[in-house]
């Protein structure tokens, strides 16, 4: 049995708390990196929800790890998801998201 976690600013995570999610990590941009590392280490968390705008400031290495990570899965909402698009472009050779 695994749980969902939400990481982000106070405003962002409030709604998820209202939806019943227990693992809420309110973090400002200064401690965001550390928080993400901690949450990733938590084996009980299966999905991590995070705002797309906030991960832009994270170091490249961590972002790459977040994208590759399967346990837990990172889902970014509220913005363009460039990384998956980039990956599709690299693997298939065509930008399949263009028309969409």
């Amino acid at each position, binding site marked *: *049995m*695994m*749980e*969902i976690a939400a990481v982000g600013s106070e405003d962002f995570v*409030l*709604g*998820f*708390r*209202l*939806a*019943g*999610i*227990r693992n809420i990590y309110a973090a400002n941009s200064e401690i965001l990196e550390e928080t993400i590392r901690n949450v990733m280490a938590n084996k009980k968390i*299966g*999905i991590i*929800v995070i705002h797309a705008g906030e991960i832009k400031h994270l170091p490249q290495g961590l972002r790459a790890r977040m*994208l*590759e990570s*399967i*346990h837990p*899965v990172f*889902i970014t*909402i*509220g913005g363009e*998801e460039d990384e*998956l698009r980039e*990956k*599709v472009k*690299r*693997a*298939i050779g065509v930008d*399949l*998201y263009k028309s*969409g």
Partner: protein
Amino acid sequence: MAVRDVKPTRSELLGVKKKIAISRSGHKLLKMKRDGLILEFFNILDSAREMRDTLAKQYAAAQESIAIASAVEGSFSVKSASFALTKHPEIELESRNLMGVVVPQIRANSIKTPVDERGYGLIGTSPYINDAAKAYEELVESIIRAAEIETSMKKLLDEIEKTKRRVNALEFKVTPELQEAERFIELRLEEMERENTFRLKRIKDKGERNDHK
């Protein structure tokens, strides 16, 4: 395998020929796997794109409803309602095999909760908070579906990339080198054959000359 490492012997030639046959059949198989994976990927891609759109829409709607709830009720009461919840969504990860790629299958329970089971008192809170909670519950449901689809996509893409690299390595590196080795051995063997014939002729000539004397 560089050409200079090859010993020009008949058994080596047989070995190289066998290797070429294996790498050809492997190349064919891997190519089929790559095509199959790409096909599978396209099947998922449409649903992933749709998922992204719904996710964006639902997130916008959820944000709006929680903004209204905070504006009407004050963010403090929204927060207190959120702390009163008793039910928490849980997910279960299972795996599914898709052309040799293990992709997760996520099952979730108790995301949507009836209003009276949410845990906060109905009298103390306004319908705005209920609306916000409902919107976010829907959003979480989509997030779970998106998690499944996007993880499958990531894994498939990884596998496609890996298979593509293997196909290309076999096609442009392994097979050509083996063929070069094969050619080298054949040429060397022919050359040795000619040398041998020539040597035999010389010996024969010498023998004949000796007989004349």
